[in-house]
C-alpha cells in the first residue's frame, strides 16, 4: 500500500488525487504500526512490561497519525481550494511558483 501510494504521488497530476495517495501512504503506515504493536504480545512466555508498553505505544502512534492526517487534510484541501479559485485549472505541474 505504501508503495502504491508513493507511486501514485509521483504519477498523478490531479492534486486531489495526489492528496489521496498521501492518505493512502499514511494509512499503510498506520497498519504497519498496529501490526507490529499487536505482535509484540504474541509471545506466550509471558508478556513483560516493555512489550506491553511498546504495544500501547503502537496504538498511540496510530492515534496521533490519524489526528495529524485529519488536520493536514483540512488544511491541504483548503489550500487546494484557494488555488483553484484563482485559476480554474487543476494540474500539479503548473504549480511551479516555488521554483528556485
Amino acid at each position, binding site marked *: 500500500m505504501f508503495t502504491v501510494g*508513493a*507511486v501514485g504521488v509521483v504519477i498523478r497530476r490531479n492534486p486531489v488525487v495526489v492528496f489521496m495517495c498521501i492518505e493512502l501512504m499514511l494509512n499503510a503506515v498506520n497498519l504497519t504500526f498496529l501490526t507490529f504493536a499487536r505482535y509484540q504480545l504474541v509471545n506466550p512466555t509471558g508478556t513483560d512490561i516493555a512489550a506491553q508498553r511498546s504495544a*500501547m505505544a503502537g496504538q498511540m502512534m496510530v492515534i496521533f497519525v490519524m489526528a495529524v492526517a485529519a488536520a493536514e487534510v483540512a488544511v491541504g484541501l483548503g489550500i487546494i481550494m484557494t488555488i483553484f479559485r484563482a485559476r480554474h485549472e487543476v494540474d500539479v505541474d503548473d504549480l511551479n511558483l516555488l521554483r528556485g
Partner: protein
Amino acid sequence: MITPEFVLFGILAAVGVAASVGVVAFNSAIRSALCLVLNFFVLAVLYFTLNAQFLGITQVVVYTGAIMVLFLFVIMLLNIGAEHFLNEKFDYKRIVGLAAGVLLFLMVGSQLLPALQSFNHVSALGDYGTPQAIGHTLFTEYVIPFECISVLLLVGVVGSILLAKRKM
C-alpha cells in the same frame, strides 16, 4: 498453515491492495475517492482482526466519515473532471516512479515478510485494544503529545477557516 484467519486476512488484503491501486489508476477523481473509501473500510476491518477495536472504529469515523467526505465535497465543488492522461508526453518520471516503487516494495518486503512469517499465534489478550486501555495510556504517558496534537488540531481549524474565508 492455512488457517481461517489467514484466509480472511488474505481476502481483506487483496481487496485493500486492489482498492489502493484503483486510487492511483482511475482517471476520474471521484472513482479514486470511492476506491479510497473502500480501502479505508478494509483497513478498519483489518484493525479489528488485530484486536485494535477502538482504532478500527476511529478509522471509520475519522477517516472515512470525515476525511473522505471532505475529499468528496472538494471534488464535487471544484468539478474536477477526468484528467487527460493521454495528453502527457511520455514522461520518464512515470517509469522511474514505477520502477522505484517496485524496488521499494521489494526491499521493504524482503525484510518484513520473513519476520511476519513467524507470526502465527493469535492469543487472547487483555484489554489491549479497548478504549479504556487506550485512554489510560493516552492521558498518563502520552499526555504531552496529546496536548500538542490538540494544538495542532486547533491550528488546522484556524488555518482552514482562514483559507476558506476569502470571498466565498
